[in-house]
């Protein structure tokens, strides 16, 4: 990975701690700092270039990182995103998505002077946090990319077996309906309505 990042390791960990209470990001940051390089994972992209695929994996993992439960890329989310963009999106949506993805990479390069996929976790987090806020606060028509990406990430994650049944609660055959029970008896969001 690139060595000319602008903040050092110590600073990165400190900033992560400020943002998240120091709990969940540290192992991941250390992983990156120890020289791991994000790869597209166990899938051969068909639409995305290798760089785009690495960006998709890295961004999905910033949105849903590894902590008590697996990261998005560990549950096949990057491949899912590509499948949706290739098979479900219309031609116009697909072009918008790719344009948005490239602009995201460019903006990161401009701001942080690095490739997103090779960036420090803290930089990636800050940048993504900002992009998310911008997308939510702006007219969604102006920036369709980020929320589309986030939606696909969540959709792929929570319709996966682990996402649905371990991070959320899934019951294939509930057998009965109870309209009012203590939340603790369920313990998580239902994966399906």
């Amino acid at each position, binding site marked *: 990975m690139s060595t000319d990042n602008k903040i050092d390791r110590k600073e990165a960990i400190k900033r992560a701690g400020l943002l998240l209470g120091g709990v969940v990001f540290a192992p991941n940051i250390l992983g990156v700092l120890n020289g791991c390089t994000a790869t597209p994972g166990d899938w051969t992209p068909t639409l995305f270039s290798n760089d785009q695929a690495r960006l998709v994996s890295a961004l999905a993992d910033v949105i*849903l990182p590894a902590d008590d439960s697996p990261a998005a890329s560990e549950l096949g989310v990057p491949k899912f995103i590509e499948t949706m963009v290739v098979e*479900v999106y219309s031609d116009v949506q697909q072009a918008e998505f790719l344009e948005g993805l490239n602009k995201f990479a460019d903006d990161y390069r401009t701001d942080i002077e690095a490739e997103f996929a090779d960036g420090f976790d803290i930089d990636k*987090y800050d940048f993504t946090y900002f992009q998310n806020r911008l997308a939510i606060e702006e007219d969604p028509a102006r920036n369709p990319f980020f929320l589309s990406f986030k939606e696909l990430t969540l959709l792929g994650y929570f319709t996966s077996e682990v996402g649905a049944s371990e991070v959320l609660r899934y019951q294939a055959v509930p057998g009965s309906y109870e309209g009012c029970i203590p*939340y603790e008896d369920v313990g998580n*969001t239902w994966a399906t309505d």
Partner: protein
Amino acid sequence: MNLNIKAQDANTYDAIVVGTGISGGWSAKELTENGLNTLVLERGRDVKHVEDYPTATLDPWELPRANQIPAEERKHYQKQMRTGFTIRESTKHWWIKDTDQPYEEKKRFDWIRGYHVGGRSIMWGRQSYRLSPMDFEANTKDGVGVDWPVRYEDIAPWYSHVEKFAGISGEALGLPQLPDSEFLPPMNLNCVEKELRKSMNEEFGRVLTIGRNANLTQPHNGRGKCMYRNLCSRGCPYGGYFSSNASTLPAAAATGNMTLRPHSIVNAVIYDEETGKASGVQVVDEQSGEMYEYYARVIFLNASTVGSTAIMLNSKSDRFPNGLGNDSGELGHNMMDHHFRVGANGVYEGMEDQYYWGRRPTGFYIPRYRNLNGNDRNYIRGFGYQGGASREGWERGVRELAIGSELKNLVSAPGKWTLGMTAFGEMLPDHSNRMWLNYDETDKWGQPVIAFDVEFKENEYKMREDMKNDAAEMFEAMGLSNITTFDDPGAPGLGIHEMGTARMGRDPNTSVLNGWNQVHSVPNVFVTDGSCMTSAACQNPSLTYMAFSARAANYAAEQLKKGDL
């Protein structure tokens, strides 16, 4: 000659039923149980209960693309997709491809349908409500359309008859505008729905009840109870809801009197000028394209409102140049649906320590309360609401500021309780709302293409003001926050409750069918699907089709035995 007679004998039955959906299944069951040797024709493929429900038990991760179909495939379903919910990877096999089954729209008309054994009884919404005495009297009181040739008392025993077999869960309320069915135990309301029920009762004296639906809350007639998966429209492996496949067709088959012939597109009813009756039907084999004739003493058209009406319009003879039984000129006219997609949403603050178990396959129902005793609105008739409360799921995370582990933590607990409901309003019959056959265009089976010119009119649009504002007012009274209203009528057809194009009536000059669903001028042809409806009421109509079908089939069997048909 000899051979022909033999062929004719082999193709001759006591009765023919055209269609296997909700009404056709009932006609088949009642006719066969009366000992009639019955041919049941279905234009689409066979669907056997359980074994032909390929997606019924798939988990979310077993469906590609999170249950969405590819863009390439969407081209085939451009009209079927207008509902927004019909075409999924898990359900697409139940709906026709518009590219195979074209129709014409002078104005947008959403004709949403599936061609296979069981028809839309597999995918229906299962909401089951009786029409009331008031509904059967409405047309004559208001001077709209024609009078129903029957009253509630005529139909009530047949509602009971079909309910006892089908299994309808619900709560008895004793309301005159929404008579009780023969109920299985009701499903439960959840906490927030109970709050709305209380508030509506206290603030407005209005009633909220659990949806009355054809899902079993206990084992019933050999079918298993609902397991609360809420995957009904994939087909239920437990038989937990009423469909022709799970219920009426097995009963008909068990008599030994049913011959089921899939892939049989009925082209026309054959009219015999000598006897003044129908002698049979012409069938185009969907696969081979060959034409066959089948004969019977009595014919039931249950091909759905549009399907049965199209068959009649296409059944031309010297006696009926404008379609079988169309002396009145009303055949194809007076198309109705329900108008809906108008109501409100809101957020309930609190009860965040409460949740629910299971996926209930129904919502709540608010029976009609407008114009019950005289008319005090600027429109006639009324509407009911269907809705539900639930806690927000992971989807809300998309628009949250959180990302990372914070986002995961956030969405792994449910969000606030939200409430939403849409009204379903009555649409009046109007002669100008019609369908017809365009002989300049034919489909790949040589059938003329069906064309529609149907629109909502003034009474519907005036009613929608109340439908929207009342919803917001009731939510405000309950103290909801973030109340938003919506009003998007879409187009007629979207309710998938097409009705009225071969209406019942007392006068052969203004209606197509009599009080027994018989074609006025061709007494051995019965039409008991939605096309018979003289008015629409605001209730979901399928239960009424069941009752009319059972009643007419028993009447027909009786008349045959007496030699009167």
